[in-house]
């Protein structure tokens, strides 16, 4: 049997699947090893993709030629564009998905990818020669060789599950964990630590009284993630909102003395932004109720996910408490909530390409780097897959900057700041979020990916057509006048200033509450323009819609966009000043001790990166630049 590959990907989760497909699509002979190929790309936590900042990441992955967006589009049961009332940087696509369909769709993507083999097995050791990884050994005793290995084993490395006073080894509930790799890397000098995360109870939806809950339906006109021609939803399933109460809290508190968190049995640090219900009660004692979301797990399953009720309290306490929630009086459990503690490798040990600094040709992606979330994992997967290919084929490293993509922010944060709690993306992590919008991910990334051969030509042609149509639309709006009399009726209706003279349409689009589509009702020229064939792209369905949206955003927010572009390029100058890898920071006694220590550990590649390390002050940077004669 074949036992030699270009690239081996260990782990079939969101990171592993993206990594394997990216490498294979670029042309690398790739092998994906998952403990069970029957359950690739599982949604171990909530059955949803996207959301604030995460939705933007999915659009970026898609723009690069990844599959998370496509798979999400094909398996969604509800779509909402969040934050529509805010500026365009905040518009965030989010979908509820059919968990089983999501996994099955991913599997069929893998099956249809050229150059990609896959097996079910458990990797227990890396084959290492001369400081470089050369392959893997598996549990059933196989040695498989490769030029590079991508590790993406999520929470499975020494995973340990906690439910009240019960704890057992496992990577997910009902699945075994993986041992060996952590120990091997630890012996090679890798820094391995523990993190924890939790997941809430799954309930039989037939036992919930929905009439007592508040319905949260999907958008009237559902959108989607992918820039390609994936379908949009015709029918959707709703989510529901419920609330805890003081009574519920009192019951939960009874179990605190049996909580693995409060007793210190869990050493790993959990995410502050996604606390367990017991953590919320503890930290915000004054709040007398907490919001919960009931999320359906699919089209045909009765299982529902109780978002907001993550817990590792004893099952009987969870059970008793849930029965006091209005609407849940007769709730039946399918799986209790649990906490899971797992190994991660401090990400300051990897480079911007996600290659290990300690062991060459080893790439690490996903939750192993201390992140949380399917989207964050998938993003790292595609970057690791691309770079593993680029390296073994002697091509240039593929990296993204902070002003180019959330993925750039994600990786820069990881390798620069490290993590001390599971890392999730927020829009506030990005300095220039107005530039990193969900509508322009293709403009930011597709060209770049196309140039290395990942994004296919049809994506590129489509992007060119969109850009052309956007410009056409802007030009039209800037030159087409409208008479005051034709539009003042509408302007009066929406209580905005009336026109006194004939004005160019773009001046109206510039106003906060006017959309291009609104104006089309009052300007036949605009209506003709929109419906005219000149805007219709051949064989491409939705480009004209995207062009209209894009033109509108550019006209409306040009002031802010150009302000941020200027600031971004000013800051980027520091990222363009390289720092050598072999600088001896400890000899620079003029830097603060903390700065020397951190710089030495992280070895930043640019002054810009150095300046973002916590503990390195502006004074240290000034001194560093003086010392190096910059």
């Amino acid at each position, binding site marked *: 049997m074949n036992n030699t590959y270009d690239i081996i990907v260990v782990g079939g989760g969101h990171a592993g699947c993206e990594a394997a497909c990216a490498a294979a699509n670029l042309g690398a002979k790739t092998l994906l090893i998952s403990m069970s190929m029957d359950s690739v790309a599982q949604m171990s936590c*909530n059955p949803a993709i996207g*959301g*604030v*900042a995460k939705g933007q990441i999915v659009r970026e992955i898609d723009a690069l030629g990844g599959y998370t967006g496509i798979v999400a589009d094909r398996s969604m049961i509800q779509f909402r564009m*969040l*934050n529509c*009332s*805010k*500026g365009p*940087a*905040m518009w965030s696509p989010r979908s509820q998905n059919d968990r089983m369909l999501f996994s099955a769709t991913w599997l069929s993507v893998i099956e249809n990818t050229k150059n990609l083999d896959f097996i079910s097995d458990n990797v227990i050791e890396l084959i290492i020669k001369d400081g470089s990884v050369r392959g893997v050994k598996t549990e059933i005793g196989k040695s498989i060789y490769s030029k590079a290995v991508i590790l993406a084993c999520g929470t499975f490395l020494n995973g340990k599950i906690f439910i009240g006073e019960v704890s057992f080894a496992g990577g997910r509930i009902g699945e075994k964990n993986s041992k060996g790799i952590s120990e091997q890397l630890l012996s090679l000098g890798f820094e391995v630590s523990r993190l924890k995360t939790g997941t809430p109870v799954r309930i039989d939806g037939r036992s919930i009284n929905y009439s007592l809950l508040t319905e949260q339906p999907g958008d009237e006109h559902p959108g989607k993630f992918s820039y390609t021609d994936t379908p949009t939803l015709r029918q959707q399933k709703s989510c529901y909102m419920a609330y805890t109460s003081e009574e519920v809290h009192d019951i939960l508190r009874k179990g605190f003395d049996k909580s693995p968190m409060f007793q210190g049995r869990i050493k790993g640090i959990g*995410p*502050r*932004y*996604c*606390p367990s219900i017991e953590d*919320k009660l503890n*930290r*915000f004692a004054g*709040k007398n109720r*907490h*919001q*919960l*979301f009931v999320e359906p797990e699919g089209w045909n399953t009765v299982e529902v996910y109780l*978002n*907001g009720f993550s817990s590792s309290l004893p099952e009987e306490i969870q059970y008793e408490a849930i029965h006091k929630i209005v609407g849940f009086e007769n709730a039946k459990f399918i799986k209790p909530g649990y906490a899971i503690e797992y190994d991660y490798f401090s990400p300051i040990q990897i480079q911007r390409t996600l290659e290990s600094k300690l062991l060459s040709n080893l790439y690490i992606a996903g939750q192993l780097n201390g992140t949380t979330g399917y989207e964050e994992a998938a993003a790292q997967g595609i970057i690791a897959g691309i770079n593993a290919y680029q390296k073994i084929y002697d091509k240039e490293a593929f990296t993204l900057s902070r002003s180019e993509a959330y993925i750039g922010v994600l990786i820069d944060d990881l390798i620069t*700041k490290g993590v001390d709690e599971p890392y999730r993306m*927020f*829009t*506030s*992590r*990005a*300095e220039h*979020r*107005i530039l990193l919008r969900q509508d322009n991910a293709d403009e930011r990334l597709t060209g770049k990916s196309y140039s290395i051969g990942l994004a296919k030509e049809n994506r590129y042609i489509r992007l060119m057509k969109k850009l052309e149509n956007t410009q056409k639309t802007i030009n039209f709006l800037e030159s087409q006048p409208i008479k005051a009399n034709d539009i003042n009726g509408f302007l009066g209706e929406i209580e905005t200033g009336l026109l006194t003279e004939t004005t160019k349409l773009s001046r109206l689009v510039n106003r*906060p509450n006017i959309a291009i589509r609104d104006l089309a009702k009052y300007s036949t020229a605009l209506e003709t323009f929109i419906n005219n064939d000149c805007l219709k792209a051949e064989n491409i369905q939705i480009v004209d819609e995207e062009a209209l949206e894009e033109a509108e955003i550019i006209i409306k*927010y040009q002031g*802010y966009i150009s*302000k*941020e572009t200027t*600031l971004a390029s000013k800051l980027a100058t520091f990222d363009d000043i390289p720092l050598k890898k072999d600088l001896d920071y400890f000899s*620079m*006694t*003029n*830097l*603060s001790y903390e700065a020397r220590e951190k710089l030495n550990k992280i070895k930043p590649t640019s002054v810009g990166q150095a300046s*973002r390390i*916590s503990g390195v*002050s*502006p*004074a240290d940077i*000034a*001194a560093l630049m*003086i*010392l*190096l*004669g910059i």
Partner: protein
Amino acid sequence: MISYCNNDTICAISTPPGCGAIAVIRLSGSEARDIALKSFIPKANKTLSHSTCVYGSFLDNNGEMVDETVTAYFQAPHSYTGEDLVEISCHGSVYIQKTILEILVSNGARLALPGEFTFRAYRNGKLDLAQSEAVADLISSENKQAHDVAVRHLKGTYSSFIKELRDKLLHLLSLLELELDFSEEDVAFADRTELINLLETIEKEVTALAKSFELGNALKTGIPVAIIGKPNVGKSTLLNALLKEDRAIVSDIPGTTRDVIEDVININGYPFRFIDTAGLHATQDVIESIGIEKTIERINKADIVLHVVDLTQTDIKSLQSEIDEFTGHITDDTKKWIIVGNKEDKIDSVPEWGSITANGLPIDTVIISAKQKLNINQINETLYQYVESKGVTGVPTVTGVRHYEALIRALESIASAKKAFADNVPADLLAIDIRQTAFNLGSIVGDISTEDVLSSIFSKFCIGK
């Protein structure tokens, strides 16, 4: 090229160049004490220990005495530079200074680069960036008030004030970011009134700080005073009388334009600078035939106007029309207008000018005789009172141009944020202006990182589904 990046022991003459009564030579670095003790022999077997001054002889390499000196030693890290530091006070002759310096260099020290002592203090964490700039101000401050400002700055009062503003901004930002990143969650959002109030508080404080620059700058270069009046009223005589009062500390400093020399006097520690006095130095007022335009120009540059009139040729009516002519073009209503009635010795009774006005400016009248030097002190007193009334003390003052510019840019972004509030633009766009404000203030004392904002959010609000 020698760079700042090394641990050499450095030395330099720390007093101004030239011959004075005494001079101080500084040594800094791990070998400072050893290098000094190769040539400095303490009297009476005293030892050179931390934070003491020892009297002794400074010998050359042949054992000949160069000078008797007082030498002080400060052990690291308890010194200005944070390193071992030796200060040798010697007699001020240029020869002695030069010889001691040469001996120190032959003992193993290196001549310091410009600003290197301050640089070391900065790199050893003794000073922050704003404080290092204050050192430069301190060294060049020529009067008590500028000195006080620089000292206040150096002590970090100003830095901590900016840090307070920074914390307020951080709070403002976290309120906005909470609303953005956690919009789907059950969190109570800040009401807009609270946000705008916070923004206005910050604006007020930044404005006050920026304004203090103008005062701080005046203290560094002298408060500008214009002497104006018709020909032959005695402007030149008055100027000479004012200068004579204070001859010992009169100095000539170059003005803002190349050809102009301006005179500075020092009253109770405050410097006053007379604008464009070249014309007034002419032996006869007749030669100075400046027109109204030139006079207006002087008035506009000044904080204080000394309007000189000839008592023998002025009645209340002509005086009022003269003032009106001068003040008609002024927009700034904070100038002080002082009418100086000259030639008191040539009139019989002092006129009553209480009803005179200067277009709304604060006004004062002083009756003098420049020639007889009568009541000149009263002018000094009036000038001094004016500055005191501005309340110089207690306000953190910005003296660096860089800081001033950063504050002005911060004010611009605050104004833009206020406009955004008024236009009811979405929070993410508003946050752009607030972030820019933070960025501009941050360039003075250190940036607010995205991590700071998130920590602020997590510590205050319950979030997480």
